[in-house]
């Protein structure tokens, strides 16, 4: 129990460090960001500059003349309450943007993660069990290749071949913009159609890594006494592969899976950008290219919180999953 408290403490401190760094970082932006948005208001609403500036100051709760210490305290207080700031481009709160974007990200990435993890683990298990098959060199080579290729290149290639040129799949969006969201088959079909390429890109890129990790873990499990003992007991080969080797080999990977699931909430920046998929990653990329400091800060902090938290959970989860560690603690 004490260990959990300690780990949670470290997580919290890490979070504090990140929040502080973000705060100071964004205050360092050259020039006065409010100026830009105030001018924007002047042009679009025909206001005079001073009232525009006032309004912008109110909207973003940001006064460049306020003493830094005070700003920091208000910032932390706001974060505690869950206020992640306001988007300067979209003019709505970051939280609302998250509500709109998160479901798409979760949809896309959870399917991708589960497929690549499942497929990869299976491949790795078979690779370790049957030592000399054609599967091994093929998957190893495939792993080297996908390891060398950044995920944006894979996504780009898929986009170019299948969307831009062959036109099998759409180029952008989460669904056909002509349709209204609803629980009808046309809508669902459109969603699946639009998600197909991004999911393929992700799965293509990450499956090999899971396979190699599983293979490594399984090979070391194979050296354990209980595998030979299981054979001595006359158990069927397939049963040993899955329930004796597999179940033990997958334990270290579960930690990785938990972390990946957590990090997933930060969105897949590249895949979403290339396919113009309106998830968290896409919005974050937009925020950075368009200098939307409010949104940038809000989304980044959300990602950081979620990642730190999921690391903590994965850590604790692993010790629960492996019956051996439970006792040792």
């Amino acid at each position, binding site marked *: 129990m004490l260990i959990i408290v300690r780990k949670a403490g470290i997580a919290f401190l*890490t979070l504090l460090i990140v929040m502080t760094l973000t705060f100071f970082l964004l205050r360092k932006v050259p020039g006065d960001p409010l100026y830009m948005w105030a001018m924007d208001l002047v042009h679009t609403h025909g206001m005079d500059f001073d009232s525009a500036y006032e309004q912008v100051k109110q909207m973003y709760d940001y006064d460049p003349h306020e003493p830094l210490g005070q700003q920091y305290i208000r910032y932390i207080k706001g974060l505690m309450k869950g206020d992640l700031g306001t988007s300067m481009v979209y003019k709505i709160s970051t939280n609302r943007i998250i509500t709109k974007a998160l479901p798409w990200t979760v949809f896309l990435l959870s399917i991708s993660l589960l497929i690549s993890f499942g497929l990869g683990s299976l491949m790795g298990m078979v690779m370790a069990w049957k030592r000399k098959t054609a599967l091994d060199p093929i998957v190893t080579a495939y792993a080297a290749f996908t390891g060398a290729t950044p995920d944006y290149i894979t996504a780009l290639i898929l986009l170019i071949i299948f969307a831009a*040129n062959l036109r099998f799949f759409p180029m952008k969006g989460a669904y056909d913009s002509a349709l209204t969201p609803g629980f009808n088959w046309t809508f669902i079909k459109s969603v699946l159609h639009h998600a197909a390429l991004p999911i393929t890109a992700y799965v293509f890129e990450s499956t090999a890594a899971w396979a190699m990790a599983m293979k490594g873990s399984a090979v070391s499990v194979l050296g354990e006494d209980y595998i030979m003992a299981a054979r001595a007991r006359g158990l069927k080969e397939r049963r040993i592969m899955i329930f004796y080797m597999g179940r033990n080999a997958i334990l270290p990977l579960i930690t990785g899976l938990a972390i990946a699931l957590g990090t997933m909430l930060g969105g897949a920046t590249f895949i979403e950008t290339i396919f113009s998929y309106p998830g968290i990653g896409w919005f974050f990329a937009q925020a950075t290219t368009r200098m939307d400091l409010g949104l940038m800060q809000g989304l980044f902090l959300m990602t950081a919180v979620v990642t730190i938290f999921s690391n903590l959970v994965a850590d604790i989860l692993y010790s629960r999953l492996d019956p051996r560690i439970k006792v040792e603690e």
Partner: protein
Amino acid sequence: MSVTAIPGRLYRSIYEPFVIIRRNKRAFIGLIILVIFALMATVGPEVVPLDTTQNFAKRFQWPSLEHPLGTDHVGRDTFQQIVHGSRDVLLTAFLAAIFTTGVAILIGMLAGLQGGMVDTLLMLMTNAILTVPSFPVMMIISVVFKVRDPVSLGLLLSIWTWGGLARAIRSQILSLREREFIEAARALGLSTFHVVFRELLPNVMPYVAINFFTLMRGAITASVGLMFLGLIPFKATNWGMMLNLAAWQTGAIYVPKALFYFGSPMACIILFQLGAFFFASGLDEVVNPRLRT
């Protein structure tokens, strides 16, 4: 000249590793690839001219004798751009790896040698660096600070990436610290400086060397990624910028003929990554005799 004629130290540090790499096919191919790129980056821009005249009639041509990799959206030769871009790309990666390694060694050693409060604080920082994903951080920093040249880009790329190496160095230092030769050195009255640079550092170096290539690979992926998103405007010859232009601005992705224009930077990136990966695993064999077949 027979092998035995080569003096001992030289043999160990240069000849023997070379033989091991030579025997390992993958590592040797990796070495060749890296050498080619190194030549391209250093000598290339001097040897290959860069013709920036625009000629719309020649846009998106297939490779020919005149244009080995075809032309881009305004008729300029792709091959020339690749060669000229390689210098910036590789220089940036190299600098990023150096900066990262420097910071990691500093922090790792400080934490390992000092211990106590210093160690705890440094490890807390390292933990933060490791937990929070580095690319979003780099995106934010590229927005906040003006990054226009390889040096500042190299710095940016190393801010959030030293965590893993620092931790590894620290644990190496911790285990080495207790070993007898350190106590002996101390007992002999050798200064801390000596202990650090003549005893500890050489033990850590092999690991650092292998990691260097991994860092370079990461730096290339990250820098190209940042350019691709349009966050760091660099010269158009830079591979990342070529991808950016191809994907977003020139409609190259819709034109099958433009295959070589956007394909070349991709191929170069993939090739370099593979080369560095293979070579690094060869280096691993040099350092870990147990891995040798």
